[in-house]
């Protein structure tokens, strides 16, 4: 005998599904707690930007001061310099660091010996796993004017020793070069993965149509990685106001603040070292808003032009 099942009311249905999934809730709970405590609570903490925070009063009881800290930042003599340094480093990274993994992947994809290809690839990843402290430490060692290898080589050509790490002219090239060294191999993986997915028939068809090696790259390989290139480009532009401040903190010194001081390093000095927490929060908030606007704008442009979108 089959019993007629009464349709559950909306509320009961919700309860039924909630109870059915109870262990799934339990499994997702620790991660949710993490996101709420360590991501959403700090977002709420942004109200500190509109207050005069002091540790004795705490976040809630510190007095409101409106836009005071934002105005102070906009009026600051460092405002223009920080924005300029941040953008120059980002744009330099975009121009030099972004295309190199693409070119590297395309060249590596042309190599037909699998062993050779894999070896080169494995070697190219390695710097990605070297910590930033070691990277900057090696720069200090290799570029030292007294004992560094580079200056020893330069002296063979009768070039006076250069204090690379103390020179404001060398800061940006060194930042970008070390960035390329550390990331080109690792960043190329995603392109190589896309290239290895291209069917061989496509290349053969292009050959029959009379396409040489260069034309095959142009008309088969590059279209295959283009969507990924666009997505990564959007993300890069979205992070235009975000630079590798951890590395800068290790590389810079007061003598070269002129070219090396960026928004995040300034926030670090002002707030963590200087105790001006509200001021630093306001600057960080401003930076976040710009980042968000950038990524939304670039994404919508990309959607219109190429129909590739992040969401």
């Amino acid at each position, binding site marked *: 005998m089959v019993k007629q099942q009464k349709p559950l009311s909306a509320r009961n249905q919700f309860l039924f*599904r*909630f109870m059915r*999934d109870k*262990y*799934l*809730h339990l*499994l*997702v709970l620790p*991660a949710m707690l*993490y*996101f709420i*405590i*360590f*991501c959403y*609570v*700090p*977002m709420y*903490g942004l109200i500190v930007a509109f207050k005069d*925070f002091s540790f004795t009063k*705490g976040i809630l009881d510190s007095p409101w001061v409106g836009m005071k800290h934002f105005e102070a930042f906009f009026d600051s003599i460092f405002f223009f310099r920080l924005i300029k340094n941040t953008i120059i480093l980002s744009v330099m990274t975009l121009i030099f660091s972004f295309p190199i993994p693409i070119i590297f992947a395309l*060249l*590596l994809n*042309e*190599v037909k010996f699998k062993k050779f290809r894999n070896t080169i690839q*494995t*070697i190219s*990843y*390695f710097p990605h*796993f070297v*910590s*930033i*402290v070691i990277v900057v*430490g*090696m720069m*200090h*060692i*290799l570029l030292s004017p*007294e*004992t560094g290898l580079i200056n020893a080589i330069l002296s063979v050509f009768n070039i006076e020793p250069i204090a690379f790490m103390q020179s404001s002219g060398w800061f940006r090239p060194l930042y970008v070069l070390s960035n390329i*060294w550390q990331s080109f191999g690792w960043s190329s*993986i*995603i392109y190589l*993965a896309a290239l290895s997915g291209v069917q061989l028939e496509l290349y053969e068809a292009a*050959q*029959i149509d009379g396409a*040489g090696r260069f034309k095959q790259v142009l008309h088969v390989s590059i279209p295959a990685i283009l969507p*990924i290139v666009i997505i990564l480009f959007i993300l890069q532009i979205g992070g235009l106001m975000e630079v590798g401040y*951890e590395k800068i903190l*290790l590389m810079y010194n007061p003598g070269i603040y002129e070219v090396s001081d960026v928004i995040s390093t300034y*926030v*670090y000095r002002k*707030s*963590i070292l200087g105790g001006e*927490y509200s001021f630093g*929060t306001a600057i*960080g*908030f401003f*930076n*976040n808003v710009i980042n*968000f606007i950038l990524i939304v704008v670039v994404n919508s442009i990309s959607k219109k032009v190429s129909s590739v979108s992040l969401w």
Partner: protein
Amino acid sequence: MLIKKSTGEKIFDIGNMIFLFLVACITVYPMLFILASSLSDYNAILRNEVFVWPVGFTWAGYADVFGDGSIFKAYYNTLWYTFVGTFINLALTLMAAYSLSRKYYMLRSPVTMIIAVTMFFSGGMIPNFLLINELGLYDTRWAMVLPGAVSVFNLIMAREFLSNTIPDELSEAAKIDGANDIHIFFRIVLPLSKPIIAVLALYYGVGHWNAFFNAMIYLKSADYLPLSLYLRRLLVLGTTNFSSGTMMDPLLVNDPTAVIGITQRIKYASIIVTMLPVLISYPFFQKYFAKGVMIGSIKA
């Protein structure tokens, strides 16, 4: 190949391989130089005679590093942060990834939404710093492992992996046999997730091993400082005083040039000692490197 290679193509192929070989050489050279120098005589280092191979081979640099002893505490701390941190990362990420990989899970989209938002908005450096203080985590070991306990990117990667490896039908069939989701997680999901666990452990583990900024702002006591800060003091700030081995040799103490050379060698040796676990596990893990990116890019 359908069509024979032309001479131009052959030249390109050979030129291309030579070029890539040179790129690889430039990439490894700095590490090779450090390794060779760490095993060389300090006079050879001072005279810039070391290029690829140790000159006047000696272990004295390593004896100096270990003789001083202050590296052990930092080493222990970094090991602690790496193991405990990676364990927390793996537990939280895999559990959440399993729930979110079930298409029938009622909170799948709201939870995914809440998590995805954090990729685009964040409190930033100072609100995070204030939170760590408010929670009483400042200058404790937990400040190194709790912030960043789940990476959104890794969570999405694990979710993609699980929804492909363990289809809804499989977990539903197990439920009909009387298992609940906790059983399924431990008896089915974990045993089938070895590749993704390896990839996640690698990504999270290297992150902990190299972590530097959080240690700098959240830690104060010398007892908790990791290797990254030990190296920063030695390599970047140059404020470490070594009182061991060769440094205390009465013949050398009053020779400033020798001290420079020995200090230099201590720096090289410290770098190698710090990188040793990464260097050793590199060949073991390297087959997983690309895998993670492949899994992650299925979505893209």
